[in-house]
């Protein structure tokens, strides 16, 4: 059984490569019972959006 720590790693990696079928399945199963990791996913999505708009000269 994967822990939140494992799942957070997978979620982070999913930003950089396509997860395997098994990995995606593990994430789905985990999401059924874990709201925190769902939030983590939304938040790292937001980090990407934020970084994309970042202007170092501001």
């Amino acid at each position: 059984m994967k822990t939140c720590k494992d799942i957070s790693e997978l979620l982070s990696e999913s930003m950089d490569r396509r997860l395997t079928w098994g990995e995606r399945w593990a994430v789905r199963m985990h999401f059924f019972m874990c709201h925190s990791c769902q939030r983590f996913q939304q938040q790292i999505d937001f980090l990407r959006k934020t970084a994309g708009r970042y202007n170092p000269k501001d």
Partner: protein
Amino acid sequence: MRGLPVGLSNQTMVKNQLNNHREMLLRYALLQVRNEAAAEDAVQETLLVALQPNESFRNESALRTWLIGILKHKIADHYRAVEKQLSIEDHCDSDEKDPNEAIEQLIFNDKGHWIGTPGEWKQPDHALEQNEFWVIFDLCQKNLPEQHARAFMLREMVGLETEDICQDMNISHSACRVYLHRARLGLRECLEQRWFNSKRAL
């Protein structure tokens, strides 16, 4: 009436195309040169080279790779010039945070559960409109170990693929993955504490 000479209209097109990459190049340069003026100079010189005719690219990604290639040379020139001016100084990185310090230990317990579960972020898009948020974001980035911040910026701001980041930073693929993950954990934690959980976000 004759239309614009073909060469001229082409050049305008190239200029527009290059302008789209300017921001990305500046981000890249700022990662390498911690001096804004020098970073801007390097970017301008890169764009000057790129404006010379007879360069055409299949796609934006090929153009980006080529531009970064030139920029790297310009940055190397900058460092050579600086070295000439200064006598060699000892680099003192001892006060830098240890990048091997595992942030995971602060965030997950022995069983792999969140110690402090990620909270709800209210109106995250609203934050992007506020200048104060960007100050905090900047601060949170600077709080990361330098290598983690660098990997994150190369990925999310410059838009490099992980393979290119490994090469650029001369690190293994697994180190790259760990840096990116730790940067995200660290930034998330910092933004939550300093922005979303504080009164600023309200």
